[in-house]
């Protein structure tokens, strides 16, 4: 009996032959845009999750900024302070003994040697006023009246730090016996350790923020799973694979995470620019000392180039966290279904 014969007795208007509707195995897999079979627009709210991800992205931007700033300081102190040397010349006005131009003072002989040395970038003998200012904390105002035999002090910047220090000290002592060469090595090491500790703290903060972001997406996904449990069970019975269901959640979580990541990065930008403005004096010193390293900024901007590159990557990182966390969470949850 043809189905159309049944149709005549049905109130349902049976098609020519509904049982013979052809389903070609073509796999175009077109889906209407916005088709939300699991009802995730309600189950995974576009309010709380993006807000929390935005907060995490904001904190991540600040932590990464702190990481770069600490790295810059460490480099600045290492390269700048390590290159600074203080030379003390006792009895500076006395005529230097030995070779050289006759009648040259000990200070003049030492200065000449320093300025002639290719390892020395700059040698500046402190003036009486500068020396007075340096000693004021210990000797009070007008230390000259105390008639103390003060040595001359020369501030030296080395072009090649530390390597030439011993040789330089030896040649200066030969020219003017009693000359002392002091590097700032101890302070450099202490400051470097401090900067590296700050850098490690910022890195740990970045990791914690990432972990919290993962937890936030996982909790949001669990809430979404609970809210759309019935829809999931229905599509599961209709033959939906774990891939199908997990992909729906991952797509939604990714969209929300990108939204949050972008908002967080945008919110962090003015804060970072303000902080960078406050730290500008250090930054200028850094740039002067470090040249065009990775922490150097774009001309006219206060932020390091790496941070400018990292800010647009925040939404992408948030997307990756959203996608992977949702995939893992949903697949783990689906194991409870047969």
């Amino acid at each position, binding site marked *: 009996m043809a189905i159309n014969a*049944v149709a005549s007795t049905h109130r349902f208007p049976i098609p020519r032959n509904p*049982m013979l509707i052809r389903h*070609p195995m073509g*796999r*175009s897999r077109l889906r209407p845009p916005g088709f939300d079979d699991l009802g995730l627009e309600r189950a995974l709210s576009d309010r709380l999750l993006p807000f929390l991800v935005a907060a995490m992205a904001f904190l991540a931007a600040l932590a990464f900024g702190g990481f770069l700033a600490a790295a810059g300081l460490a480099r600045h102190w290492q390269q700048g302070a390590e290159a600074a040397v203080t030379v003390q010349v006792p009895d500076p006005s006395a005529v230097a003994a030995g070779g050289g131009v006759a009648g040259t003072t000990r200070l003049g002989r030492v200065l000449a040697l320093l300025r002639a040395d290719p390892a020395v970038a700059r040698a500046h003998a402190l003036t009486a006023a500068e020396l007075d200012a340096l000693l004021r904390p210990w000797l009070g105002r007008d230390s000259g009246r105390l008639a103390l035999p003060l040595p001359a002090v020369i501030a030296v910047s080395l072009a090649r730090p530390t390597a030439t220090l011993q040789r330089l000290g030896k040649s200066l002592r030969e020219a003017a016996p009693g000359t002392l060469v002091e590097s700032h090595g101890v302070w450099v090491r202490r400051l470097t350790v401090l900067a590296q500790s700050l850098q490690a703290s910022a890195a740990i903060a970045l990791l914690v923020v990432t972990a919290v972001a993962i937890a936030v997406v996982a909790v949001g996904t669990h809430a979404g799973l609970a809210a759309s449990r019935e829809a999931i069970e229905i*599509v599961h019975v*209709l033959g939906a694979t774990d891939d199908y269901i997990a992909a729906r959640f991952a797509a939604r979580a990714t969209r929300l995470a990108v939204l949050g990541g972008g908002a967080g990065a945008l919110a962090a930008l003015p804060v970072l620019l303000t902080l960078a403005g406050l730290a500008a004096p250090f930054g200028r010193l850094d740039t002067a000392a470090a040249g065009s390293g990775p922490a150097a900024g774009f001309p006219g901007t206060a932020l390091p180039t790496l941070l400018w590159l990292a800010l647009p990557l925040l939404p992408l990182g948030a997307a990756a966290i959203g996608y992977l966390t949702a995939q893992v969470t949903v697949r783990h949850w689906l194991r409870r279904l*047969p």
Partner: protein
Amino acid sequence: MVRFEHVGLSYPAPGRRSAAAVLHDVSFRVPEGGFRWLLGTSGAGKTSLLRLMYLAIRPTEGRLSVLETDITSARRGMLANLRRRIGVVFQDFRLLPHLSAFDNVALPLRIAGRSEGQIRADVAEMLRWVGLAGKLESPPETLSGGEQQRVAIARAVITRPRLLLADEPTGNLDEAQAERLMRLLQELSRLGTTVVVATHNEALASRHGAPALRLEHGRLVP
């Protein structure tokens, strides 16, 4: 084809040491294209038996085979493909409330990855067939109980399943609609689909002669 061999089913009972058994030592076979009534009072285990057949649960005892696949030993990953060959009409319809009638019926085809062009044509024709041509975009909440049931029936048969399971499919239909639906199910069976219909309406079953599986307290009785 469906084969039960000494199948038992127990659900974990919260607060109790032993699980609550709902099916005991159930054995029967429905051949390909066969039609069976599944009769029994409320609580006899009809819905649990259907849940086993549409692979929503696995048996805790015995051996179950559906469409030539041994469900007791099949890998989980294989079952999704098998489910796409099974159509189910749920007693409570289980339509997705946020989707239109059209999208509810289209859902199994989209899950199966069919092309949208084919889906549009097939679903429109199927909804016209069940008398809902004017309600393609209506959400389920705006449809009457009978209309929702017809959407559920359309969703169950749109993929031309090899096994069709229906749990009280006439519960919300008037007598005339119920008769027409039964004739349709029998026609599907004649075209090769294995059909199992659970009902407590013995009068309906007796009017449409077909072998019956009768459940009492989780056991098949003659």
